[in-house]
């Protein structure tokens, strides 16, 4: 019996958020704390020849200045440790004196006040030797392009190749062939809370960092790696997180904060250090959604059956790897859509440049691929005189379909139900608005659908840990749930608590969550990849089962600990790309009505109908909130947002020139259809949303 899952529960943290009591990282304070500012390179590609910090060091209020020479192991990165923590002289890693994008960090100034630290940053003198700047991935791919990273013989970070059937043999059977190039802009996460954090060394000598992140244990791992100390000497804790959307998946201020308190302690200074980034620093300092150029050639027969898709994708990875190689995998998957296409040829490249690094952002490469795929299907349908929904119905994946990776889709393929539900709700017909509203306003409507992976892909190790303690004597009076999952605003902590209550069949009020702290939890993986509900739910179910067994054996408290490991995925075959890429999927379809002012080009999104198969909505209110928020981010991405770099320099450093949707831009209505077709592997059948 469901006691807490599948029902609306108001956010656990909402009371503190509406009263101003929530503590975001920038709100944290400790007695005697110092303030830190970072000097950024400001150079898209240059080698540091000299640096003089003496004026900064003697500036009033400055306590210390740290440079590359102070970094024990001067490299970090989520997938590959290819970025210097601090660029400069004395780096102990090859290539550590080269800045590869404007936001590379070169020095840390710690002072009594933020102002003093900022002023001292301005006093640091650096001589740079300019190196060739490459900002176009197509230029960077050329064999004679200067190499941007040490130890590489090409600037191509990853090349994914899919070969299924043989596209060359079927073009002549196609009644329509559509060939098009799609370009997608660089997008900034623009979470409202700029990066901030507080670090200190606790009474046991543990380097402690309180910061907004998406994966506490990964942050802990990278800090320990850089400081060259054991994992258990580092603690990462997430206070309230002001949005993330993938933008906090890579390191921002975590390592430098730890480095500062660590080095200060060596000097006998045991004082906390705080940093708060400005919006400009945030825009400069973290990665963006990859710009993609996608060349697609698709063919379908007269009946609307898609016979072939030949696609080339080139992603601008920027200066370092971040998650580019993984994002590329998702784009590789999405660029042929949720369709059963017998002949597929895809070449996808992630390419280094001297631009701001690209990385994770909601959808993780999916939106770029889906934009091309869905545009191709709409064009084919139009060319063949077919209804856009009917065209899809003739090609959608189903259980047992092979997919473009030439392996059977995991059971629970419901894209057809989702497409039908969406079309039905929107009263879809193939007629566009025939009569204009006025002289200059025209309306149009469009259809698109997609699938989204649940969990890490392509063989990347997956795991999720949970611990449940049952307290009480004759009945369970209190549940303590230990879990490292980050709540970035999506409501994960509320959902984790709901799932624990349900798994133990006790009222939600009895659940107490100890979350997002490496000192109380083991690794639960990141709050990303649409994985947290799915993985955490399974780990909570496992932990509850063990705990309840203990409870029945009269253990008090009864403790259950569980590490959930889902079925193993596999990585792409080098030649054909054949693999079992994902554990499971969620499915989505949308109808969007827009109004276009033909005199000005202004596009107003009017109405959106969105159908999602979420397996089970653990918390329907939160699921709807996620959908509404995602639609508006997608709306911004499509119509307003463009993070512009010129010659490697940021042209849109503020909200005054990087435009995100306001309350005036958003659609008049968003109608949601929540489907709940249980995922066979999902906890309570849930897929990727809470």
């Amino acid at each position, binding site marked *: 019996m469901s006691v807490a899952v599948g029902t609306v529960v108001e956010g656990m943290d909402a009371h503190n958020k509406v009263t101003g009591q929530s503590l975001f990282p920038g709100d944290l304070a400790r007695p005697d704390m110092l303030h830190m500012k970072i000097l950024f390179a400001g150079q898209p590609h240059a080698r540091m020849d000299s640096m003089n910090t003496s004026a900064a060091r003697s500036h009033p209020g400055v306590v210390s200045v740290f440079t590359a020479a102070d970094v024990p192991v001067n490299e970090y990165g989520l997938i590959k440790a290819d970025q210097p923590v601090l660029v400069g002289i004395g780096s102990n890693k090859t290539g550590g004196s080269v800045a590869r994008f404007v936001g590379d960090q070169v020095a840390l100034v710690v002072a009594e006040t933020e*102002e003093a630290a900022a002023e001292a940053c301005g006093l640091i003198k650096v001589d740079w030797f300019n190196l060739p700047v490459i900002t176009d991935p197509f230029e960077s791919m050329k064999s004679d392009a200067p190499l941007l990273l040490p130890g590489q013989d090409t600037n191509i970070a990853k090349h994914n190749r899919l070969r299924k059937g043989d596209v060359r043999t079927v073009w002549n059977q196609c009644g329509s062939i559509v060939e098009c190039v799609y370009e997608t802009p660089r997008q900034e996460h623009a979470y409202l809370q700029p990066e901030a954090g507080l670090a200190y060394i606790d009474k046991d000598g543990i380097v402690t960092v309180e910061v907004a992140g998406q994966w506490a244990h990964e942050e802990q791992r990278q800090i320990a790696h850089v400081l060259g100390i054991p994992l258990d000497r580092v603690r990462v804790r997430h206070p309230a997180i002001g949005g993330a959307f993938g933008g906090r998946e890579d390191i921002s201020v975590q390592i430098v904060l730890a480095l500062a308190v660590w080095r200060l302690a060596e000097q006998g200074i045991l004082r906390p250090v705080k940093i708060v980034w400005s919006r400009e620093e945030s825009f400069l300092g973290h990665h963006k959604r990859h710009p993609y150029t996608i060349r697609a050639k698709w063919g379908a027969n007269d009946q609307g059956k898609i016979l072939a898709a030949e696609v080339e994708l080139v992603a601008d990875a920027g200066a370092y790897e971040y998650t580019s190689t993984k994002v590329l995998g998702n784009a590789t998957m999405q660029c042929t859509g949720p369709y059963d296409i017998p002949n597929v040829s895809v070449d996808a490249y992630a390419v280094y440049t001297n631009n701001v690094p690209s990385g994770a952002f909601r959808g993780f490469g999916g939106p770029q691929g889906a934009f091309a795929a869905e545009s191709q299907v709409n064009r084919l349908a139009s060319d063949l005189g077919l209804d856009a929904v009917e065209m899809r119905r003739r090609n959608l994946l189903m259980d047992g379909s092979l997919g473009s990776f030439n392996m059977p889709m995991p059971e629970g393929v419901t894209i057809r139900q989702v497409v039908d539900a969406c079309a039905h709700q929107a009263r879809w017909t193939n007629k566009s608005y025939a009569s204009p509203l006025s002289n200059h306003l025209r309306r149009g409507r469009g259809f698109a659908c997609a699938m989204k992976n649940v969990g890490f892909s392509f063989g990347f190790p997956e795991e999720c840990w949970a611990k449940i303690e049952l307290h009480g004597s004759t009945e369970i009076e209190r549940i303590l749930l230990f879990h490292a999952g980050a709540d970035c605003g999506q409501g994960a902590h509320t959902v984790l608590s709901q799932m624990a209550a349900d798994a133990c069949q006790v009222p939600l009020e009895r659940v107490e969550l100890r979350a997002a702290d490496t000192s109380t939890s083991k690794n639960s993986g990141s709050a990303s990849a649409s994985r947290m509900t799915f993985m955490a739910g399974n780990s909570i179910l496992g932990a509850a089962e063990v705990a309840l067994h203990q409870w029945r054996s009269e253990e008090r408290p009864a403790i259950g600990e569980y590490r959930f490991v889902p079925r193993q995925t596999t990585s792409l075959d080098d030649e054909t790309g054949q693999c079992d890429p994902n554990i499971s999927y969620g499915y989505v379809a949308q109808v969007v009505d827009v109004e276009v002012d033909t*005199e*000005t080009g202004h596009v107003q999104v009017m109405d959106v109908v969105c159908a999602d198969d979420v397996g089970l909505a653990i918390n329907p209110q939160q699921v709807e909130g996620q959908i509404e928020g995602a639609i508006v981010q997608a709306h911004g991405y499509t119509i*307003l947002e463009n993070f*512009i770099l010129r010659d490697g320099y940021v042209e849109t450093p503020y*909200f005054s*020139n990087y*435009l995100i949707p306001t309350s005036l831009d958003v659609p008049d209505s968003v109608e949601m259809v929540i489907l709940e077709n249980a995922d066979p592997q999902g906890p309570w059948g849930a897929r990727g949303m809470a």
Partner: protein
Amino acid sequence: MYPFNFEYHKASSVSEAISLLNQHDGAKVLAGGHSLIPAMKLRLSDPGVLIDIGKIDDLHGINASKGAVTIGGLTTHSDLAASIVVPIGLSETAGTVGDQQVRNRGTIGGSVVHADPAADLPTMLVALRASFHISGPTGNRTVSAEDFFTGMFETDLEDGEILTAVEVADEQSGTGSAYSKLFNPASGYAMVGVAAVVTVASGKCTEASVVLGGLTPSVMVASSVADSLVGVKLEETSIAAAAEAVQNDLGSDVLGDIHASADYRRAMAPVYVRRAVAAAVERAG
């Protein structure tokens, strides 16, 4: 974010403000601060000395008498937007400035004196043939809005002077005013802003004043458009034809940025001229 440090003085009267201004070379006047403080935060402005006039009672308030409306320099956009005594085009324009919080603090005097080419009020005030009352060390003077704006961020205001009030004539029946703009989605600034004031008698235009903002370094009077309107029966086609004449007024120096290129703004000029004029005609009844 901290601006550069500065010396701060609070004036309690216009004469004290003028005296303080004249004691401190390069001192700037602080009214609502909604142009100045953002620039100071980004350290684009470093005034050294600020004279805060925000608490001078004489500079507040809107007074209508004898066919004219006098608007104190510290009147906020918010108060202007809510006013029923000022011409409707002016309250409409004030309501499009920034957002509610900005309108609560930003002032008409600040907007006028700052003379940002993307500002809204200067465009409408020139169209309304407003006059500006100025006080300085040598006394008071009045200058027409059209003569006041001399360039990008440049005005006729001399060092040591303060703009105390803006005066506009009452809107007569048969006259309508309206503002139409292509706004910057972030700040609400005008990328193209058009103010139109049109007088209609027996279906024909007897007088027209059309002014452009956001397009050129300084507010520009679109006299070709006005000339094309006067004497004409105002219908959709005649308004559209007159609006095309804006290209004669624009000249070669059209502003552009990443949000709207010069070519785009130029192309949009007749569209917004047409919309502003049509709305003004409708209001003229």
